[in-house]
């Protein structure tokens, strides 16, 4: 669907240069909600703007549905852009036009007839739930409503792809939730592939199926959201995950625990089916060992369960080591050392 092939973008400001995107290769498949996350200045916006050639790559190719779009003539590029909807952090609505006028604008560009435009605008207003606001001007709307208009406008020409630059960063948590739900609906009901960038992990967690983590212009890790959450490779990725789920009690609590207890703490992570079986209790029972859950949670991610427990075991030393061995075959197990977290 969208393929970045060794894409780089360097900005030259006078004599100095900024490498905003460095040799990025990514594939976004049809139907994906693909999230790109990174801290400020990581190069996310630049990467996104390469998709519709608002920025031209200094090296590499961006291929959309088989065509390298940097080779398109200006006219062909404008046509292709009608196939790529875009929404923005600051909405970027036309203040001189009404809500209906904003949504009608891309349709006029596409050369649609007036009667059809009226009909299509109505349809889109219904989809985003703003039928009563058609004649309002943008400055009469709330942030969430503005973004709904932005989404309706981006969807007007029935694009195959929707790219979102921090679509929820200017909104409060509740409105963010609503807009994310709407994006999910866009993906599921209209089958539109979504490429979004954000610096908030909970956005990735709530709607994306795939994620790429960017740092300093480069993609440092990418893959399905579930795999990335359950098995992060890069420290930056861990930091982002840590921002939405605390997987370890605080250092203070750990110290307290160690003062009053003997033995080691283990992190037990369950994914998928193992969350449904009483693994811990059956294995410990078998080896005549007791277990105590010190801390932990079970969460849903991408319609799958993901458990993360901090556990201690008490019993005979040999029995404990046999228990650990047996557990290790079924779930992921690692000893908790204090320097973590």
């Amino acid at each position, binding site marked *: 669907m969208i393929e970045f092939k060794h894409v780089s973008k360097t900005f030259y400001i006078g004599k100095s240069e900024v490498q905003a995107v460095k040799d990025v290769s990514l594939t976004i498949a049809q139907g994906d909600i693909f999230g790109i996350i990174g801290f400020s200045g990581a190069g996310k916006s630049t990467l996104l703007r390469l998709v*519709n050639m608002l920025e031209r790559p200094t090296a590499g190719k961006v291929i959309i549905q088989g065509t390298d779009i940097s080779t398109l003539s200006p006219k062909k590029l*404008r046509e292709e852009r009608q196939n790529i909807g875009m929404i*923005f952090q*600051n909405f970027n609505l*036309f203040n001189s*036009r009404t809500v209906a006028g904003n949504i009608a*604008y891309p349709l006029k*560009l596409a050369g649609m007839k007036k009667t059809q435009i009226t009909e299509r605008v109505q349809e889109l207003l219904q989809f985003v739930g703003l039928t009563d606001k058609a004649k309002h001007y943008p400055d009469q709307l709330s942030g969430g409503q503005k973004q709904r208009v932005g989404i309706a406008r981006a969807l007007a020409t029935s694009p195959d792809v929707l790219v979102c630059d921090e679509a929820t960063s200017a909104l409060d948590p509740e409105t963010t939730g609503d807009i994310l739900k709407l994006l999910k609906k866009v993906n599921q009901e209209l089958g539109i592939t979504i490429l979004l960038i954000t610096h908030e992990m909970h956005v990735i967690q709530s709607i994306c199926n795939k994620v790429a983590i960017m740092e300093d212009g480069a993609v440092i890790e990418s893959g399905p959201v579930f795999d990335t959450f359950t098995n992060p490779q890069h420290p930056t990725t861990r930091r982002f995950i840590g921002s939405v789920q605390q997987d370890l009690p605080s250092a203070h609590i750990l110290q307290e625990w160690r003062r009053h207890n003997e033995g080691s703490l283990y992190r037990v992570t369950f994914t998928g089916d193992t969350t449904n079986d009483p693994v811990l209790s059956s294995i410990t029972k078998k080896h005549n060992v007791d277990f105590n859950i010190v801390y932990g949670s079970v969460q849903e991610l991408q319609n799958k369960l993901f458990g993360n427990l901090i556990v201690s075991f008490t019993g005979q030393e040999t029995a404990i080591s046999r228990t650990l061995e047996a557990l290790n075959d079924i779930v992921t197990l690692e000893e908790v050392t204090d320097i973590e977290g």
Partner: protein
Amino acid sequence: MKVDWMTFWPRIVEATGETLIMVVATLIFGSIIGISMGLLLFVTRDNNILENKWVFQALNILINIIRPVPFIIFLVAISQLTRLVVGTTIGTAAAIFPMTIVASFSIARVVENNLVSIDPGVIEAAQAMGASPLRIIFTILIPEALGPLILGLTFICVGLFDFSAVAGTVGGGGLGHIAMTYGYQRFDGSVMLVTVIILIVMVQLAQWIGNTLSKKLMRR
């Protein structure tokens, strides 16, 4: 040496008409040229939709040269050109020519300043939808900047009454001419008073029209 008001009133009415014609004609021609130049100046800026260093610099320098020249000096300096274009250097038409040139350059700057204050994101949104540069100019830039633009033009328009009076003193006709010949040279205070009052009324009217129009367009 007091004027006979019975016969003088028609002169005043005529001069008021001349002033109005000078101002309105200059505003119309000046807006057409000035808005085009302002748009060109804006779109050829760095990183803008029709970025072009040469065009931008050429226009920019030209405006910077013409704008600081005092109108009275400019008027005299280009009188040969005025004769060439209009055929004469005396009368309303001959005044409109230099007034239009000066107004155009001022309007170009006003337009550019108003366009700069448009959120670049809005232009980018239109680009991302596949709008061509020309389309962006006419369907985004102008409508988005129209409210403040009208205020800017109103400001220029008020200045044009001033210009018309200056032009009047050197043969352009209009109220400036009357004030100069009857009010100043013949020391008739009442003529001066009447022309000043008429000018104030006209300026107020222009300001009111401008404010009303822009308010309507800005919906605030």
